[in-house]
């Protein structure tokens, strides 16, 4: 199964200007619609976020897809003392080694392992802070031709990225029809040969 890199987090005050444009509710909605639109055709690979991980778990449960197979979380051992309890419930966390006393180097190591996966076919950015730019650049470096989708309306660093990439019109910057955005994107990825398999029918429980 093709994999999708998701970069999603909620900007906080005091760490850059990102919280000024961010709407936490729209970040929640965009992540929800992304999972609904892609979870049956793509494995979602991401760095985890305490407010979003439980939500993705619940959606997978309701859609009847196995969270432990459909989502792959990366976590640096640098943050070992702060791991969320969910990590223990599912066997789907890949731990990367810490660089002693170096937060940034530890994060970079984790990002290189996560974004260097050769099964990644696209990247989606929702909300986020400084890490978005780093993750975008690393993704580009490892996968120069793969599509990248910054979702603008929820704000944060993904909004800045969407503006910088310049391929979005003004309406798109405010577009909260996330179901439509992801539906078009997935169709485009499939046409581009990124995820060539046809849309599988959901299993009836």
């Amino acid at each position, binding site marked *: 199964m093709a994999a999708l890199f998701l970069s999603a987090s909620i900007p906080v005050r005091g760490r850059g200007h990102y919280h000024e444009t961010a709407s*936490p509710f729209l970040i*929640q909605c965009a992540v929800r619609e992304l999972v609904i639109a892609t979870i049956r055709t793509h494995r979602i690979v991401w760095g985890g976020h305490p407010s*979003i991980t439980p*939500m993705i778990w619940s959606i997978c449960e309701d*859609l009847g897809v196995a969270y432990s197979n459909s989502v792959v979380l990366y976590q640096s051992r640098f943050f070992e003392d702060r791991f969320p309890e969910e990590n223990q419930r599912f066997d789907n966390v890949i731990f990367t080694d810490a660089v002693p006393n170096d937060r940034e180097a530890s994060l970079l190591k984790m990002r290189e392992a996560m974004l260097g996966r050769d099964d990644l076919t696209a990247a989606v950015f929702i909300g986020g802070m400084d890490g978005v730019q780093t993750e975008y650049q690393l993704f580009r470096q490892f996968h120069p031709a793969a599509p990248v989708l910054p979702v603008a309306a929820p704000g944060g660093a993904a909004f800045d990225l969407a503006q910088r990439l310049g391929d979005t019109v003004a309406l798109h910057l405010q577009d*909260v029809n996330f179901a439509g955005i992801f*539906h078009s994107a997935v169709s485009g990825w499939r046409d581009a040969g990124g995820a060539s398999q046809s849309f599988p*029918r959901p299993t009836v429980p």
Partner: protein
Amino acid sequence: MPVLYELAVLGAPSDAQLNALEEIVGQAVSAFGMTLGAEVAWLVQPDEFSPSQRRAAAAVYFGSQGAAAFDLPALLKRAVPVLPVVSDVSRVREEIPQELRHINCLDYRDGGAARVATALLECAGLLPRQRRVFLSYKRNEARHAALQLFDAISARHFEVFLDTHSIAPAEDFQAMLWHRLCDSDVLLMLDTQTYFESRWTSAEFGRAQAKGISVLRVDWPDSTPSARTATASRAELLAEEVDPATGHLSLAAVERICLQLEEVRSESHAVRNVNLVSQVRNGIESIHGQFVGIGQHKSIHLLLPDGKDLVVYPTVGVPTSASLHEAVTRSPGKTVAVLYDHVGILPSWQAHMDWLGEHVRPARWVKASEAAWQFADWEA
């Protein structure tokens, strides 16, 4: 307060029709503490109507022979509900433009301005029974504040779910709780110190997130927010706004929370609606059918690939046998379906719905996230 809802009157209403409609709609929204023309935008025969996707919006179109031209296709494409009104149902061809003829028309003789007003308010999610809030709190920490907010929010014509008031003693507590949560636009979370230590409140918060329900977190002065609550909107309480002896909130704080609730609610309602309709549109277009527009009772009008009409009635929250019954009686002689978002619905209730669907033939259920497959299977 900023604009929270947007309503428009299009076409060619008579002065009497316009005045009557304006008066009824104005009265209705004033009961919610809002003013027509202020928090609820009221545009009469505008040259253009392109409401924000983040606000609930609807329009009524008064048909007449040679009514003023308006860019209806753009409005319909954006999934803004448009209610066509005719002077007499036999005159649809003369009075209603082609783009609106697939949508059920209101006959003005049947109920007049009052019926048009109700239909318009319903499309914008502005009927009291549509304004649903779920109060989530720890009883030992915020009981008095919860009761106080229950009264204040109810007075603004919200339907508030408060566990101690809203569940009859014999009802299945857990099922009732889940269903009422799924039916809500906003979870009002009273974030006291040990909110997440209770299994119930924790679960309520988690389900709201998965379901796309907006969370308004009322931040108690002594509590440290959990990292889990980062997606919630925030209403902050100052230390002096909580009476330590009684646990009551100051009137100013209650007022502020109510205003913020209205803002959060309008956005939540609008954004969820845009995405629900979009899932249906994606579904019908992927099988080469066509999305026509949205009309009365928020019905979604579609054309199947073979050219047959299909009317889909979306339900917010948990659909019941009454949803099927309403769908069939509202569109006699048409192929109808009831659309719902199955995320968060209890498996036992889902089994009951599947059973019901097998036995009620004139209407079917459609799960929003599986619309494409279900339309493809449609035996019209």
